[in-house]
């Protein structure tokens, strides 16, 4: 592996680990009733803002004739499909664990579960992906993680509504 490839692998992992780390802290807060009141979604945007800023600088420094290649890479479709598909299993594991807790904001809990699932999936995909450009990471890694977040928000709510209230609520 070249030094450039290693640098981009570390960057991809750092981005995904940053997203997973911050969102895990928030998800832990959401395990308790009312946890959403102590959960601001602003900080979770920081890893995304950082990678978008780096991508913008990278595009600004490159000639415009290279932009298409930097943004699309060779594996954009594989990235777009693989990260959400692989995220299904981690999402199911996290939601199953959340049913032991007592979240009161189901959409937000599902969204964070989806974001974490997308993040861990992106961590795995980074080991396979050989597209090394910051705009590619920002758009396709960041975009698929946000896609997982939206899906998680919708599925999280549906899962709880469909399966009844969390055990912590029904046992009282």
């Amino acid at each position, binding site marked *: *592996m070249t030094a450039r*490839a290693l640098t981009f*692998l570390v960057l991809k992992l750092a981005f995904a680990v940053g997203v*997973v780390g911050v969102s*895990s802290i928030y*998800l*832990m807060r959401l*395990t*308790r009733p009312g946890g959403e009141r102590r959960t601001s979604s602003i900080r979770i945007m920081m890893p995304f803002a950082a990678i978008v800023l780096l991508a913008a600088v990278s595009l600004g420094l490159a000639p415009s004739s290279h932009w298409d290649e930097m943004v699309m890479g060779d594996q954009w479709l*594989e990235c777009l499909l*693989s990260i959400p598909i*692989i*995220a299904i*299993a*981690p*999402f199911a*594991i*996290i939601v*199953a*664990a*959340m049913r*032991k*807790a*007592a979240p009161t904001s189901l959409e937000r809990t599902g969204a964070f579960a989806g974001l*974490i*699932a997308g993040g*861990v*999936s992106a*961590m*795995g*995909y980074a*080991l*396979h*992906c*050989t597209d090394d450009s910051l705009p590619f990471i920002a758009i396709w890694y960041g975009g698929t993680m946000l896609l997982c977040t939206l899906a998680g928000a919708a599925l999280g709510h549906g899962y709880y509504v469909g399966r009844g209230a969390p055990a*912590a609520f029904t*046992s*009282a």
Partner: protein
Amino acid sequence: MKTDDLVAALSTRIEPVNRRLVNWTMGIALLAAAVVALGLMLAGLGSGRTS
């Protein structure tokens, strides 16, 4: 059910949630999620870096 009955029903047999257990469960779930994602990705796509 009247409101007083509901309040009474909700306030009986209340047991404190074991926070440590919830934290452990979530921690293990997050670890398992990461391992499963990594395993699925490597099994399905392999490591492009080493090929």
